[in-house]
């Protein structure tokens, strides 16, 4: 295996509505910021990979238009996933393992403000039996939360605690969309949105983009003072047949934890991609994270959720913690699909003595 590290990360401010800025304008900012951070040009990049969803923009091949943000003359080696850009990072990691690249640029972007996000997410469901009934993303998450509450795994209060911590942590994240100090009482007095979820249990609708640069060990050490090495990475998907799943557990997380030998690591911090408060509690349980692990220092996606980039942002946020020396060994998690259907786990480590 080749040793691969994250060496740069950039993110636009997460906003409810980026207004007249289009996707290309959002991507361009972060791609240049990430390249500048390690003093590279697009010609130094061996492989470029992006993650986005054309339905968000409502334009076919919108992801191709996104390439106007990167220099593609002379022609570049490029790919795209119609998924969260965390999976674009996975593809880039594979390219590096295959020795087809030493340095890779990954970016993700999503402007959710122009469309009807809750319904657009329905299009990722089974098109024969489920999607024609139009269950929206919040309602599906609510089914999961209800099942967890009825199983006595969580309470509305424990969900509110997740929100409280997210908003508090987000105060020190300059890009966050939602932050502040709230008491559990404040939060529980908010009206129910989709039972049992309150609005603050759901990640917000966000516009933005982010970019990460990956490199082999040799390149990483010459370009970055404290790269975050990807020690272990795995992703698993559960069935698309919603009714077959037990929503109160996550077999994909359990399996991936085993594969990456999670229990062998002493994890200082975790960045979890939980678009709904109850999902963070499920993740903590399935990952068996103890109370000493600091969770979502960035605020997590409840503080800002760039659709199709929020998973990549977990990896980027963990990179920030490692680069600054605050964390030695961290866990980043990304998810995709309804109710944590697909999950990726990444162990990231500093190699500095």
């Amino acid at each position, binding site marked *: 295996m080749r040793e691969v590290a994250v060496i740069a990360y950039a993110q636009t401010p997460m906003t409810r509505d980026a207004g007249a800025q289009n996707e290309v*304008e959002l991507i*361009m900012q972060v791609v240049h910021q990430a390249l500048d951070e390690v003093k590279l040009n*697009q010609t130094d990049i061996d492989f470029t990979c992006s993650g986005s969803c054309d339905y968000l*923009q409502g334009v076919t091949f919108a992801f191709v238009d996104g390439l106007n*943000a*990167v220099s593609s003359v002379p022609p570049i080696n490029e790919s795209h996933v119609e998924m969260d850009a965390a999976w674009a990072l996975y593809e880039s990691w594979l390219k590096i393992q295959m020795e087809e690249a030493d340095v890779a640029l990954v970016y993700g972007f999503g402007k959710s403000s*122009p469309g009807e996000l809750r319904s657009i997410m329905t299009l990722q469901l089974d*098109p024969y039996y489920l999607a024609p009934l139009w269950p929206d993303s919040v309602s599906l998450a609510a089914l999961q939360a209800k099942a967890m509450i009825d199983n006595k795994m969580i309470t509305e209060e424990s969900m509110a605690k997740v929100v409280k911590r997210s908003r508090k942590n987000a105060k020190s994240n300059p890009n966050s969309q939602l932050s502040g100090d709230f008491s559990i009482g404040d939060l529980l007095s908010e009206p129910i949105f989709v039972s049992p979820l309150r609005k603050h249990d759901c990640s917000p609708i966000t516009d933005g983009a982010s970019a990460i640069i990956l490199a082999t060990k040799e390149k990483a050490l010459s370009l970055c003072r404290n790269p975050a090495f990807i020690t272990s990475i795995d992703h698993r998907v559960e069935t698309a047949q919603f009714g077959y799943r037990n929503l109160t557990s996550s077999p994909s997380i359990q399996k991936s934890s085993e594969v990456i030998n999670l229990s062998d690591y002493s994890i200082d911090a975790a960045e979890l991609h939980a678009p709904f408060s109850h999902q963070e509690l499920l993740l903590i349980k399935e990952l068996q994270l103890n109370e000493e692990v600091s969770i979502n220092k960035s605020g997590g996606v409840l503080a800002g959720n760039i659709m199709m980039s929020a998973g990549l942002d977990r990896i980027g946020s963990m990179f920030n913690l490692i680069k600054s020396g605050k964390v030695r060994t961290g866990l980043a998690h990304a998810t995709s699909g309804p109710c944590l259907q697909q999950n990726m786990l990444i162990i990231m480590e500093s190699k500095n003595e």
Partner: protein
Amino acid sequence: MSEEKILEFEAPIYFKYSYTAGKTTTSFLNSIKKGKLVGQKCPKCRGVYVPPRGSCPKDGVATEEEIELPDIGTVESFTINYLPIPGGAVDPPYVSANIILDGADLAFMHIVDGIDHSEVRVGMRVKAHWKPKNEWKASLENIAYFQPIDEPDLPLNHLSDEKNA
């Protein structure tokens, strides 16, 4: 009793979007509303793009400097369409051409007319034939088509040389 074969079912999808053209396209559309073709120049390679997309496809950097271009250019390539396109605005046969405006580095597609189709050729000099002013809106359709002007054709190598320079 044999089962009826289900060959299709309807699952209609409707979505509403509030589309944002972006800073650059908004500026271009506001100019063409007034009958002006305004492109943008790359700060690195000095390439000029019309219609501008806000970034240089070569360098991947933002283009901000605006430059007004004439409505005169050259046919870089063309084809004659004989098949109707569902919902198409123009009845066939018609000529679609890649036209590169004088001073621009990127061609865009438009229609060539006002000439017998068999006489259209690569290198032919053309000028915009604008619709009547009262029909102008924020669209490239304000130009009905490009028509030939009385100027000698540009040699083919001139077109490609400029681009590769």
